[in-house]
């Protein structure tokens, strides 16, 4: 669990925001929405693995 995960998620967020507005300007709203959805799923994948790791640590730590 290092700081890199924060930069990954922030990078994905900013990238999705930029691509979304670019595609919106180009009039391709459906593509823009798909890109936003893709960005969210990738970020969610990373976050879920992270939360799983945290829950395992807490479980071993507090004998939950």
């Amino acid at each position, binding site marked *: *669990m290092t*700081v890199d*995960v*924060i930069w990954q*998620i*922030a990078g*994905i*967020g*900013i990238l*999705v*925001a930029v691509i*979304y*507005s670019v595609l919106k300007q180009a009039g391709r709203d459906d593509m823009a929405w798909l890109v*936003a959805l893709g*960005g*969210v799923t990738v*970020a*969610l994948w*990373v*976050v879920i693995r*992270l*939360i799983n790791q*945290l*829950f395992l*640590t*807490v*479980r071993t*730590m*507090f*004998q*939950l």
Partner: protein
Amino acid sequence: MEIAKVVAAGLVVVVLLGVIRPQRPEMGVLLSLVAGVYILYTVIGWITPVIRLLEDLSLQAKVSLQYLNLILKIIGVAYLAEIGCQVARDAGEGAIASKIELAGKVLIMALSVPIFSAVMQAVLRLLA
């Protein structure tokens, strides 16, 4: 000096959230969750010696480990419930946050039933 790392990471994430949240609120929620998990990881690192100390003290004081395990379990439940509740409230979902909080409280009460009965028996033995 570890506190500087945590504070720096927190402040950077606050700035990033200021950029991301207006554009993509859902990414903002994910980013705040990741930042929270990172800070909690450093906190877990600091808690381990305290837990070791508690275990040694309870061994010396001949307090049965069952109670210490229960206290640790309750701290763990409160810890996790707090994570979920804060992230949900941060994302603007007050209803879900209070439900998570309620679940945490009920579980802690359920976990502490054996202690209540032990205390009751001790008190009754004193009175009788």
